């Protein structure tokens, strides 16, 4: 932005107003997270007492015990992680491979096929929920994690991101040179391209992991037994009881959200840049 030539009083005022607005909005954004962590350390009676707690209490441990008692907490946690990990690892492989294919080769129907990839982005996910459930039911994959990670292995978003990055980051000459040196086409991908697209793989990995970690609607219909459900789904079922243990639910929610917050703290810049680079072209 243009630096004002002279720092006039009105521009200073604008600036201060801007800061105040940003701080106020930021506090509103953070507040629900803050209350989640605070409530995780209180009993139900304290959470809905007057005044509600605004500082950490001492009941985190008992809330955690309630969680262990009522739901297979660590099993669900593991299921969540396993699903997110499988989706991420397979997505990175298949999407970068397809992105490499679209970016580095001239072949018949290339533009049309890429158009199909992009068009699938427009299909509302929820449209498929019921027939997808029936298909999984028919092939006998109900209650198996592969029902959720196999279909998610090669998504359009990932292919689009990978293609964009490979086109801009890898010169075709490099690929040609590798061919002359006797690399097979797959070796070119595996040994030359893959190491060079690490930053893009990092972003796609983050996006995919977060999305898979937060999955709910399809997990909710495919996973029918307590042993196979993921954490968001079992936490939701706790809500159905008559005497809802909100302290325990908040403790579980905090433990569900905490890893994402940690990952985000470490990689916020890369994640945010990666998410918008597909949307904006400079």
């Amino acid at each position: 932005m243009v630096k004002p030539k002279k720092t006039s009083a009105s521009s200073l005022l604008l600036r201060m107003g801007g800061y105040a607005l940003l701080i106020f909005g930021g506090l509103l954004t953070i507040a629900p997270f803050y209350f989640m962590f605070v409530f995780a350390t209180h009993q139900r009676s304290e959470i809905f007492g007057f005044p509600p707690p605004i500082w950490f209490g001492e009941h985190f441990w008992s809330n955690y015990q309630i969680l262990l008692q009522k739901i297979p907490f660590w099993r669900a946690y593991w299921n969540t992680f396993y699903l997110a990990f499988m989706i991420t690892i397979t997505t990175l492989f298949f999407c970068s491979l397809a992105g490499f294919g679209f970016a580095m080769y001239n072949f018949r129907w290339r533009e049309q096929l890429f158009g199909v990839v992009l068009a699938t982005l427009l299909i509302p996910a929820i449209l498929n929920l019921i027939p997808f459930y029936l298909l999984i039911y028919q092939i006998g994959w109900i209650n198996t994690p592969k029902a959720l990670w196999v279909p998610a292995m090669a998504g359009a978003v990932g292919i689009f991101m990978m293609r964009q990055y490979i086109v801009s980051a890898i010169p075709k000459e490099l690929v040609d040179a590798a061919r002359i040196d006797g690399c097979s086409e797959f070796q070119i991908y595996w040994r030359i391209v893959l190491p060079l697209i690490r930053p893009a793989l990092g972003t796609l990995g983050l996006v995919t992991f977060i999305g898979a970690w937060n999955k709910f609607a399809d997990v909710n219909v495919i996973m029918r037994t307590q042993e196979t459900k993921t954490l968001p789904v079992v936490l939701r079922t706790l809500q159905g009881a008559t005497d809802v243990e909100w302290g325990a639910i908040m403790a579980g929610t905090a433990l569900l959200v905490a890893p994402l917050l940690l990952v985000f703290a470490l990689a916020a810049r890369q994640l945010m840049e990666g998410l918008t680079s597909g949307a904006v072209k400079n």
Partner: protein
Amino acid sequence: MRKTVSRLEIRGSPGVGMRWSNFQRRYAPYIFISPFFILFLVFGLYPSLFSLYMSFQAWTPSDGWGRWKFVGLENYTFTFTDPMFWRSLWNTVWLGVFSGVPQHLIAIPLAFVIHMVLSRFKTFVTAVYFLPYITSSVAIALIFNTLFATHNGVINLVIAHLNTWPLLGALLPDQNINWFTSANIKYALALVVVWQFTGWNTLLYLSAIQAIPKDLYEAAAVDGASRWQQFRYITLPLLRPMMFFAVSLTIIGNMQLFEQPFVLLNGGASTATPGGQTVTMYMYRTAFEWLEMGTAASIAWILFILIGVLTYLNNLIFGRGARGVD
């Protein structure tokens, strides 16, 4: 230059090895992109077409697999004559507008302010606003469930406190609001959705604002344009392509709202609170509570067509000059 040389070399040295590598080059890309297409055909296109087929059939799981009964348009006529469907559709559209419009009305000025007043902490501040977007919708709905509590819920207490302020107090109700009644749940849901997605839109708009060439502002400043004029006549028009993109995403997302209402209403206790039932919840209940799979498929297709129409209208409004985004 190098490219031509290498091509010449390839042509110049034919042999078995060369033929194999030409064969590879020709078919490798198809193999590399095939996983997507196989998965899409099996888990994407086939279920979609199957649901179209199903929307003309009567079937419930107890009938046994494959025992479909063709009923023509009955599922559609049933859906269109069910008051619950119209109620859900109204809720969805209401929510779509009242949770969608504020997101953009907040995000655009917010992105502009972030860009104007921040330099060093830009990423940090944007990251803070972005946090809700990466958080599970289920977690968010559970958290807000406690915040919206009628007695001593944090949100009601804040309102009660604001009530004691002059002027502002007159605008606010002086009793605890029961957010979980049919009439009020919509407002609660809209608030949650706005909170969750404003940061995402801010990020989109911020990235578009950063791409606007600085000399435009410089030229305007030289001509004596105020900040407001710069925003009005430079930033806003140049944000149009991004508005098209961001509004498209909002329409597609808002028309499918499921997790937030589902969790906030505790699994969709929608007989008690029809005011919070969205079309996707209505579809979910039709399929998994009433086990009317054919009718549920017809709801899905009606929704799909509706999303298509709205996206098209958005295209008419913002689409012109939106070439920069694809």
